């Protein structure tokens, strides 16, 4: 059991920290998300140059074949820098779905383009009023050797930037996954922003015709594919949240040393020290349960589900507590647009609800970790 980063992992982390420090500082990030700014794929293309879109993809498709641990290392930095680009949804989640299923032709066409940063993917699976359930009401009908998709999707992360959508639908009563060109006829997209100013869409499929090639997976294959990829995304978002927490806490440690009130730095007050200590403990424990999630991910399907849900169920509320403390210790400034910590707090409010909120994952932990009781 070795928790130390390998040389390769250290290079990955240091390289990411350097890039973000130089190209995605807090001020640069604020410029990026200004209301009047046009979306810009500069960072997306830089990620390609840095090999980050290739990172998790199998080597047979031109990827680097790195594992979930490496994804987590990078995601922590994505969190620390408040990145709004859809790296998690496109590169981590969608490429995982595509590289394990779908025709070879489809994968050989799409994945290299994704790796180059030229094709952005988004997963359309959530539906209005269904929270985190993955069984869709969207249906796929057979139509002259093709398929016709019909239904409504919501909260499609990275929808506005997506070139290709991966869509869940029921086909002959079974779960199926389709790849759909975002600009295809019958795809009606309504774009909006989430609270962190990241792009999101509602997508309506109105008898959208897709050809046979477009069926990526169906039945139990599709179910397992989706479950596994969503569990990975759950771990990845947990790592991202950890990075956000650390950024907030670091800034706050600095703040209380320099901010003077009643003739002394705030940090001299024991009440302040104790809040920081509590936040510190939460960050330590969050990192531990993330590592546990990484360690137990591969053992079995049950182990994977428990690993992912335990990480998310712990880290989500932990981050809200830590970032809440950080806002508190910044006084009024903590809630302003000008200060980092408010952005961190808002970011973890958002991330806590992605890929299953605390309630969802806590319930999952209970069902996986508790003795099974039969009804009396």
């Amino acid at each position: 059991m070795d928790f130390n980063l390998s040389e390769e992992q250290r290079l990955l982390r240091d390289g990411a920290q350097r890039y973000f420090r130089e190209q995605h500082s807090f001020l640069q990030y604020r410029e990026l998300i200004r209301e009047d700014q046009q979306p810009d794929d500069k960072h997306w293309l830089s990620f390609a140059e840095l090999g980050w879109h290739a990172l998790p993809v199998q080597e047979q498709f031109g990827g680097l074949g790195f594992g979930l641990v490496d994804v987590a290392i990078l995601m922590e930095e994505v969190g620390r820098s408040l990145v709004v680009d859809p790296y998690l949804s496109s590169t981590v989640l969608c490429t995982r779905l595509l590289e394990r299923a779908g025709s070879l032709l489809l994968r050989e066409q799409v994945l290299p383009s994704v790796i180059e940063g030229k094709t952005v993917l988004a997963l359309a699976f959530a539906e209005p009023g269904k929270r985190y359930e993955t069984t869709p009401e969207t249906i796929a009908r057979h139509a002259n050797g093709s398929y016709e998709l019909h239904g409504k999707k919501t909260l499609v992360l990275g929808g506005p930037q997506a070139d290709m959508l991966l869509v869940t639908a029921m086909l002959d009563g079974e779960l199926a996954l389709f790849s759909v060109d975002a600009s295809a006829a019958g795809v009606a997209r309504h774009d909006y922003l989430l609270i962190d100013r990241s792009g999101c869409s509602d997508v309506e499929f109105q008898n959208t015709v897709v050809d046979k090639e477009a069926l990526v997976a169906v039945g139990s294959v599709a179910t397992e594919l989706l479950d596994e990829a969503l569990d990975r995304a759950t771990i990845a978002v947990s790592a991202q949240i950890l990075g956000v927490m650390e950024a907030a806490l670091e800034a706050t440690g600095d703040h209380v040393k320099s901010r003077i009130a009643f003739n002394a730095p705030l940090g001299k007050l024991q009440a302040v020290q104790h809040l920081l200590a509590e936040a510190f403990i939460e960050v330590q424990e969050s990192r531990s349960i993330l590592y546990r999630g990484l360690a137990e991910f591969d053992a079995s399907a049950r182990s994977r589900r428990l690993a992912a849900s335990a990480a998310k169920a712990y880290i989500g509320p932990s981050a809200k507590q830590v970032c809440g403390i950080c806002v508190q210790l910044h006084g009024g400034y903590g809630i302003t647009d000008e200060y980092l910590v408010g952005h961190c707090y808002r970011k973890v409010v958002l991330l806590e609800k992605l890929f299953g909120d605390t309630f969802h994952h806590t319930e999952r932990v209970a069902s996986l970790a508790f003795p099974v009781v039969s009804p009396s």
Partner: protein
Amino acid sequence: MNFEFDNNLQTFREEVRDFVSTNLPPDIAWRVQHNGYLGLHEERLAWAKILSKRGWSVPHWPVEHGGTNWSAMYHHVFNEECMKAHAPKPSVQGPYLVAPAIIAVGTEEQKDLFLPAIRGGDHLWCQGFSEPNAGSDLASLRTTATLEGDHYVVNGQKVWTSGAHHADWGFFLVRTSKEERKQQGLTFLLIDMRSPGVTVRPVITIDGEHHTNECFLENVHVPVDNLLGKPGHGWTYAKTLLGHERAASAEIYWSRKWLEAIKQIASQEMLGELPVIANPVHRHKLARLELELRALEYSVLRVLSNEKTNVAHAAINSSLKVRGSELMQRITDVGIEVLGPRALRYFEPGLALHELPDADTWPDYILGKTAAQLALRAATVFGGAREIQKNIIAKTAFGL
């Protein structure tokens, strides 16, 4: 980062499991399972004797003194399996506190005199540090030791000397001189608890049990041979000793055992038509405890496997203590919550199986649950009070 478990670990785990199931006396296991948190000194010693025959009573000591040279994961597995089988938790004062100090700075005579008895489970030790006026502020202690020829004469009073009523020996922190800084005049003495002038008086705690004591020292003669290390260096030895078992204060093995027991109880106790564990409120409380413990178990593994970190060790140690102690409190509290009003019956310590009331009305899993919840209200006080630990984190992790 490599999370692959050693294949030999499973073999070792089975070896430990087999040894314990063969050699742990069932009556001791029963008593441990139905105990609260503290006590059971005789049982601890008995188990230490059994372990010492296998060479497993002091696995963490250097090999030349009887340690096993296990890796961190082996220690972890050993502790897990012992706890699961309801083996008594090892006594801390002898094997884990004073022995490492004797090994580090003791004379050869002291090592020969004291270590075999600790290793063999023959001697119990107690710790004489705290005083009525010196708890968290330990350096303010006032017990004095005056050198008179070939012995010290010790006068003063200690408190929270847990196990002193059973102990053969005690390690005491006493003042031998008045210096500019109060830490500088302190000396570490090893005292035979049967020495004339040593009086141990019980301090009963709210769980109704006699775990701890006051210890009065009136003109106690302590041979100079029982000075550990150098006079005036006692504070350094004490600090090292108290910081020694970095991960032990997290108490993950005890908490895991307790939580597993609570989950079982919650599956059997009914709330209306459903078991307590099916009720969403209790279910989520239990799940939350499961999450905190899962995280803490890995926090301990990170320390045990010497994870390289820029974070000060002192801050990590303190985190483990704060989180570990608060988690014990939360677990024991939910433990009585799932029992409902039956948690309110007082059971005298040391009840034998045949003395138990009717099992339909009073299932034996109730025993010890409330005693533990009451006793562990002090978990955030003993072993370094929580507020001091937070000060340490603020200082060492944030430079405040």
